[in-house]
């Protein structure tokens, strides 16, 4: 049984169709990436899955129908959305940001343990706990956003453009971390414009074009396919 199963999902903003009739599924423990150009509907799909938008069609998570369920309920079930543009609370300290990641949890011992493991995964964050999150660099903010999402103990992590606006070297670091998180057992749905990196790290990929699925398959195969190379990899 797949961990997430999306069937015939459509989302419209008023009369404009942003996403039309897309279906895909993610198996436990894998990374699936949604790639595509600007306006292809990647973020919309992600928001529809996490309950921030009301879609038609159906979304099943862990065997339950979660179509249109509120994000705060989904988070408690283990579906955590790390929003686009990092969405950190810039006027709060780094520590306060992390604590908000544990907002729905009450297992203090385990939270403490998880915090420690975040510091191992992101040593830079530990150095800046008392600093306002807005004063962090772009890469650090992205790491904070990921750490904060991980503190909610996701079974499935939705990552929206984690490489957005980062220097190439930091992009490498972030993707290395994404792989590490995945190896620790977190299933990941990754939305990316950086198709090159996304196809390297993901197991499966879905290519979106103007709101519908253009191609789908194992990431390594898509990376070799001529159509994808021309359209998204520029070679």
């Amino acid at each position, binding site marked *: 049984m797949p961990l997430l199963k999306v069937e015939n999902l459509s989302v419209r903003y008023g009369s404009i169709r942003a996403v039309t009739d897309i279906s895909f599924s993610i198996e436990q423990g894998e990374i699936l990436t949604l790639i595509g150009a600007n306006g292809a509907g990647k973020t919309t799909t992600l928001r529809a899955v*996490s309950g*921030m938008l009301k879609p038609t069609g159906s979304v099943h998570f862990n065997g339950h129908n979660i179509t249109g369920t*509120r*994000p*705060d309920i989904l*988070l*408690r079930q283990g579906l*955590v*959305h*790390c*929003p686009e543009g990092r*969405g*950190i*609370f*810039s*006027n*709060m300290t780094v*520590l*306060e940001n992390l*604590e*908000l*990641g544990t*907002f*729905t949890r009450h297992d203090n011992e385990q939270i*403490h343990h998880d*915090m*420690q493991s975040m*510091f191992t995964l992101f040593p830079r964050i*530990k150095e800046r*706990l*008392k600093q306002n999150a807005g004063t962090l660099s772009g890469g650090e903010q992205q790491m904070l956003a990921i750490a*904060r*999402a991980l503190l*909610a103990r996701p079974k499935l992590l939705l990552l929206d453009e984690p490489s957005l606006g980062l220097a190439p070297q930091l992009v490498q670091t972030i993707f290395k971390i994404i792989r590490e998180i995945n190896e620790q057992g977190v299933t990941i749905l990754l939305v990316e414009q950086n198709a090159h990196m996304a196809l390297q790290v993901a197991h499966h990929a879905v290519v979106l074009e103007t709101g519908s699925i253009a191609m789908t398959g194992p990431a390594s195969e898509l990376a070799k396919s001529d159509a994808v190379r021309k359209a998204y990899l520029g070679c």
Partner: protein
Amino acid sequence: MPSALDATTNAQLRRPNLPLITLPWLACALLGLAMLMLGRFLGSYQETLMQQVGIFAIAAVSLNIVNGLAGQFSMGHAGFMAVGAYVAAATTYYGSLLHFNTAELQPGLFNFGHVLMLIGLLAGALVAAALGYLVGLPSLRLRGDYLAIVTLGFGEIVRVLLQQTSPQVNGKDPAEIAAFTDAPLRTLARIPLNGALGFEGVPAYATNLWIWTFVGITCLAAYRIKESSSGRAFLSIREDEIAARAMGINLTKYKVRAFVLAAFFAGIAGGLLAHAGVTTSPIDAGFQRSFEIIIVVVLGGLGSISGAVLAAIVFVLLPQVLHPIKDYRLVIFALLLISMMLLRPKGLFGVREIWNILPRRAAHTKPGATP
């Protein structure tokens, strides 16, 4: 090695002890007590000023919950205050007529009149909180300016409705009192709140002791709210709604909760005002009063409780201090507000509290002192 690493992070992770948590509360109660003792030395003018400061402080601290912490711009706070004021005024006034057969102030430190006032305060606060729930609901769909207009409209609706109420029972006319005590419910069904003239003759039980005790209670409650998980949720909604939702915060629940809590304490402030020896009139629900409270909150710093109290003191006392320069005082007052906004755009304290700032200042100056 790992244990040393853990020790430092543990120290950073540990929550600071709730700093001086009872101090503001104690300070306020002591201030009230001192004023009770010094009442005969202070003129009634100073006493009235201190009452106003206290009531403004409660109003500002309560507005701060919704405007400051949760970032939902409410411009109808005076409406909640007026609702609390009228419910409390009516409770004490008509309760006194029934129980004492007169609305005169009953002598003594604590008697049934005070009980009536407390019942009235609670009832007013609860009614205001219920209205806060209703006003809070649209805040889910409305943002910024639009929410401000809705809440502004709420205050105006309260004001207009209060103007339509029927004349109150004259507490100086034995015949009217007798008619009222014979059939109290029939009279009350007419909603005798005295319309546009304003509700008069409520016995002034709310001395500075009472008012400042409530300032203390309100500040303590607000502080606990700010430091609670609700407070964190409020602040995160103010910062970024999408990120807050992504962190599992139920926007509906917390936005409405902020409105309800703010309205509750606004109701208390209004109830105290009604018992401070002034006429409670529909104008008190109007936008002018709402703006005054907003000014105090912005002046103190959105999110700062001690800032709101300090700003309330400044806001009430400054025009009095500037009194000698007559007509120009409002000009000076406005100029002071403008320069304040230019020099400290985040208000006196920003989101922090006075006790968070003072030690930080001390820590900053220390290395400079020993070069």
